[in-house]
Structures are given as structure tokens and as C-alpha cells.
């Protein structure tokens, strides 16, 4: 599967969360012997994202914790602002990178 830029950002954020939560999951009884390998996979994925977009992701993450947030029923789940309906169909079908006008996060349409 060849991923578009938005999908790569989603994967990167999923990976960052997984890395951040690894210690807690380990305590539940899961083995984590591939931790270093996962860090390498994260670097590889980050290299595959255009530099300005990656920089935007890192800035948002530093400031707001979540850089990419889901949109459900046209609502940004980062700040709960309603998005124009016309954006939704384009956000879904073309996977363009839209940001929420209120909180500035990158939007991923769930439905």
C-alpha cells in the first residue's frame, strides 16, 4: 500500500504514542524486546515525510500533544469546532491536509 502524506502522519503519530506508552504496556505482561527496532522504524517513517510537513507535525506535537486529530460528524475532536461540511468530502476522498481553523491541528476524517 502506498500511503499518502496524511496517512503517513497518522502512522507516525500512532507510532509515537506506542513508543510513549511502551513502558506501561510492558507492566501488563507484554514483552518489549524490539524497542530499539521500533525507534529505528520511527526514524525511517519520519524520513519519508516532506521536511516542512514533518516540522509542522513536531511543532504541533510539542505544543498540543496531539498533532493529528480525528473529525467525526464534522466536529474536530481536538477542540470540538464544527468543520464546514464541504471540507469533509474533500478531506475524505482526496486525503488533502486540512488544519482546524480553531486549534490548528491536522485533521483526519473518521467517517
Amino acid at each position, binding site marked *: 500500500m502506498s500511503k499518502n502524506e496524511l496517512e503517513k502522519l*497518522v502512522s507516525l503519530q*500512532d507510532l509515537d504514542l506506542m513508543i510513549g506508552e511502551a513502558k506501561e*504496556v510492558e507492566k501488563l505482561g507484554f*514483552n518489549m524486546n524490539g524497542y530499539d527496532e521500533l525507534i529505528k522504524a520511527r526514524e525511517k517513517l519520519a524520513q519519508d515525510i516532506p521536511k516542512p510537513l514533518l516540522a509542522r507535525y513536531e511543532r504541533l506535537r510539542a505544543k498540543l500533544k496531539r498533532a493529528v486529530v*480525528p473529525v467525526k460528524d464534522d466536529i474536530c475532536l481536538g477542540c470540538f469546532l464544527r468543520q464546514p461540511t464541504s471540507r469533509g468530502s474533500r478531506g475524505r476522498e482526496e486525503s488533502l491536509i486540512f488544519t482546524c481553523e480553531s486549534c490548528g491541528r491536522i485533521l483526519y476524517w473518521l467517517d
Partner: protein
Amino acid sequence: METHELALYFDENLFISDMKARNKEESLQELSELIASQRYIRNPGLILDMLHQRETLGSTGIGKGVAIPHGRTVAASDVVIAFGKSEKGIDYNSIDNKPAQLFFMVIAPFHDEKNIYLPILGSLVTFLNQKKNRERISQVTSFDEFISIIRGE
């Protein structure tokens, strides 16, 4: 988390009593595609990708025939658990090298308001650490039977 609460996150439509998968990759695909087909997620590729990364971190085959592939993703809206059973067992690169027969796939959103994701995983591990529970689950043929065992009935 008590198991009667855990039971709320299963779904009759996310239950396979006889999985078709013959290897680890197919088992991840079969369960994630089922979750996507029930409209819990729009893009099964993203979930599968996240699950692959999770296996890089360490096999979710926790031994004694049990696998709990899991993870959180922006691409999911709700916490769901899909269950699948393989009679023959699947080589899953588990910590005890034994084939996995019972699969519990846990998918959660990135932001989980009630903070239930980790308690769900913990409660599943505790439940499945008990031999009696594993034996009973491996005998089930219907969702009703399955869920009453999870509820502790």
C-alpha cells in the same frame, strides 16, 4: 476492570469461531478486515500498519495459545475487541513458541476519554492467565456462550 465491564467492548459481529488464517500475517488481516467491515474504522490499512509496528516492538503472542494484538490509532473512533479462534493454531512467534489459538484484537482511539484502554488490556491478560478460562473459551461455538464466559457466568 471487572470482566462484566470488559464484556461491553465485544461485539457479536466481531466474533469468529473458526478463523481461516493460516499464519500470523493472515490472522492480523482477518481480524482487522472484520473490524473495518463493521464500520468501526474507515481504513483497514492504517490499522494493519499500526499492528505490524506493534509486533516489531514485541510479539503480542503472550504464550499458552493466546495472542492479544493491540494498539491505539487516530484512525479508530471507539474501543473495540474482535475475537477469533483457530482450531489448528497459528505460528505467531509467541514467547513460548507455541501456536496461538485464541486471538483478542484490541483497537482503541488515540484519545481515550475514559482511560479504559490499558485497564482493558490488563483485565484481558489477567483473565487469560487462568487455565480454566482459556479452556472454556477454546470450546465455544457461539458468541452467547463466549460472552457469558467473559462475564464470569
